[in-house]
């Protein structure tokens, strides 16, 4: 945090009415994600409180904070793994109250997990095909009776899956069992699987964890590529400040379940409250 990090994107951020900032190019468009006073309690403990954020439809946004700040809990609230005790989540302007994870995904929100959750007994291609489940469809009976819809659907799924895998150059691993992939490849496969659901917002939970600097560099390029190619928003939790400062356009800092700062990478790096949260307390694992 002490010296400024290299930035790959230089975006002008502008404030919007909902106490947040979005890239200038997105300012006239409806935000892909908006939260209003989002909060959750676990047995009286407020894990996340009054979380307000707006994410532009093509924004790359970072969610950072010391360990235990509630970052993953925010992801779980956005994807409806947890139901919030207060506030609402709007995806593309639609209220998601009362929805479950599956419905939230159909609304256009896809995610990866901090501790990888692949379908490890299935092949790489099948993992992506499951991501395509709601995109390329045919019914159970077409499948059992091998009707023409089955053959067409399978062909489309196969082509689309290889197409998506090629983003990370993984098309040659299509028939490998997902569980036997190296760690970095498993993280990449999770991203491909999430992308396959055709989201408008992609949530990445520590995508660079366990990667070496070279792999991280590649990942940063790929995240930008994904954003440009698919024209979607990306929100990521990450402890690697090179990655966060390098590609995030807007950053939101969380501490003890509350937002303590929002701003561009430059603003965040020089924000005394943020430096205090990271360095002033006992949390020293972040450089």
């Amino acid at each position, binding site marked *: 945090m002490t010296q400024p990090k290299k930035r790959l994107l230089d975006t002008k951020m502008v404030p919007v009415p909902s106490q947040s900032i979005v890239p200038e190019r997105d300012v006239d468009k409806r935000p892909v994600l908006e939260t209003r006073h989002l909060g959750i309690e676990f047995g009286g403990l407020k894990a996340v409180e009054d979380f307000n954020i707006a994410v532009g439809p093509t924004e790359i946004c970072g969610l950072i904070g010391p360990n235990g700040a509630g970052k*993953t809990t925010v992801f779980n609230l956005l994807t409806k793994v947890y139901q919030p005790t207060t506030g609402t989540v709007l995806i593309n302007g639609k209220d998601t109250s009362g929805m479950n994870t599956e419905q939230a995904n159909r609304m256009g929100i896809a995610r990866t997990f901090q501790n990888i959750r692949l379908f490890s007994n299935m092949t790489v291609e099948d993992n992506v095909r499951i991501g395509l489940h709601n995109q390329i469809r045919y019914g159970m009976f077409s499948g059992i009776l091998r009707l023409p819809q089955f053959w067409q659907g399978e062909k489309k799924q196969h082509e689309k899956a290889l197409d998506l895998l090629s983003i990370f150059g993984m098309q040659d691993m299509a028939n490998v069992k997902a569980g036997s992939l190296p760690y970095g490849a498993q993280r990449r496969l999770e991203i491909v699987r999430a992308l396959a659901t055709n989201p408008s917002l992609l949530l990445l939970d520590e995508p660079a964890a366990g990667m070496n600097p070279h792999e991280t560099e590649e990942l940063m390029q790929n995240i930008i590529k994904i954003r440009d190619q698919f024209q979607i928003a990306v929100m990521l939790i990450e402890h690697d400040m090179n990655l966060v400062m390098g590609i995030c356009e807007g950053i939101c800092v969380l501490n003890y379940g509350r937002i303590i700062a929002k701003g561009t990478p430059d603003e965040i790096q020089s924000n005394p409250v943020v430096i205090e949260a990271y360095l002033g307390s006992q949390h020293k694992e972040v450089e």
Partner: protein
Amino acid sequence: MISLLSHLMNGLSLGSVYAIIALGYTMVYGIAKMLNFAHGDVIMIGAYISFCAIHYWNLPPALALVAAMAVCTVLGIVIERLAYKPLRQATSLAVLITAIGMSYLLQNSALLIWGSNTKSFPDMINVPAISLLGGELIIKGEAIVTILACVVIMIALTLFTSRTKMGKAMRGVSEDKGAAELMGINVNLTISVTFAIGSALAAIAGVLLCTAYPALTPTTGSMPGIKAFTAAVFGGIGSIPGAMVGGILLGVIEILGKAYISMELGDAFVFAVLIIVLLVKPTGLLGKKIHEKV
């Protein structure tokens, strides 16, 4: 009115037996996070041992009970060490299937040793019946002993888990095995002790059960075992008072259901209660909510 009271007493007494068995299930589930399907068959082995002790070795009832408890304790520890311990990291499906295999192993071993003929269990409890309400309501001695035994065991177990070092170790292991190990708790020993206590209780339950229902066969334990598991789930698995409450409620429900609704559907009634409880409150009456970490 009198018949209702006498049904209630029968229910209470049957429920006490369920509660004692359910305690074994609940303790093992709390610590090893596994459904010990063979627990019901340990009851049956306990009953056979005490039957043999009285019938063939002419031991007094008290010694027969001690013999049954001793054999079952050893049996419980051996089963855990041989079949369950190697599977601590395995899926719950694998552990459950192994436990089912163990249940069949015990039943069929009993079949080979004692045959399939029904053994008429001797009356081990010589306590006079109490007659109340001018002799209209008679409470059998067995019922009194069973209910008392249940209360005593319940109090003893509660004191054990809250006051003794081993009891605290058990609670520690059931919360977090890894952390308990790091704190210097011998996890293997703790789990063995849990199985030992559960199995000794099963022996007591076996004797009490067979005194009330004297027909002893190799499958005697399986139905009460399943019902006691139901009771444990009903009360909230992992909770000692829950097992007690669940067992007694289930016994009363079963007897009343059989008496007032349908004799044939008595068991169906018990299982219907289980299903309803699980749907309304999946963690049982006194159970804790379990969060899945994402």
